[in-house]
């Protein structure tokens, strides 16, 4: 499994197509990060709602 690129600089340059390649891979990375963050936020909101419900219940 030899590495195709001779240097890291070549790798980042992507033979002149750097913009298109990294805009694509970057988009996937952003999408995954955003989704994971949203998932955590949704979980927190759900747990908070339960907590609220429990306090409401505890009062009356």
């Amino acid at each position, binding site marked *: 499994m030899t590495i195709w690129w001779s240097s890291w600089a070549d790798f980042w340059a992507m033979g002149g197509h750097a913009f298109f390649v990294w805009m*694509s891979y970057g988009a996937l990375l952003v999408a995954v990060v955003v989704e994971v963050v949203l998932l955590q936020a949704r979980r927190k909101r759900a747990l908070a709602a*339960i907590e609220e419900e429990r306090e409401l219940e505890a009062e009356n």
Partner: protein
Amino acid sequence: MNWFYFSSPSTFYTLAGRLAPWFFILAAALAAWGLYLGLLVAPTDAQQGAVYRVIFIHVPTAWMSMFLYFVMACYCGLTLVFNTRLSAMMARAIAPTGAMFTFIALWTGAFWGRPTWGTYWVWDARLTSELVLLFLYSGYIALSNAFEDPRRGDRAAALLALIGVVNLPIIYFSVQWWNTLHQGSSVSFKGTSMHVTMLTGMLVMSAAAWMYAIGATLVRVRSVILERERRAQWVRDAGAA
């Protein structure tokens, strides 16, 4: 094994909690290997240049977008036939991840197209069908959240997904038919010769995407369960955990 043991939301909640991290770890490992193959090892294509490496995420996300819609439709079928609550929640949990993969497939298709054919949006048959699939996902998500009673949203969106999954091949065929008529020879993405590392790279990335999708779905379904069962006693106890 009692097949229906895990079909009750409370037991599935804990099971999903235990499994989800493993799927994410597996997804990360597969992705690392896939990217290593796709970005570092695979040779640059002679005609298209290095931009073809976008294939390692474009094709897996496109496959996954269709596969997840099909899986979602299966859960919707279960919801309508057996009126089970958990299958409806699973379908709801899959849709956003499916829509995300569809969007990424379109985005990467556009950025691959720009240097190759000179325009960001080329009315290629697959890209156009992918766009219609994005509308189908959006329709499912919009309809499932359009009702006060979430159970009503489940069943209405479930039937829509079934109608959608029956129409999906027809849409793909009609767009393919339309494309060959207007475009002459289809501008296909398969121009590159399939070097062995390329194929393996794509398959590994697809597996990574699949594991990720399962992980994300399991995490999201736990939130859906918490939202839907918040009055249930077991949720109160689990809430603290």
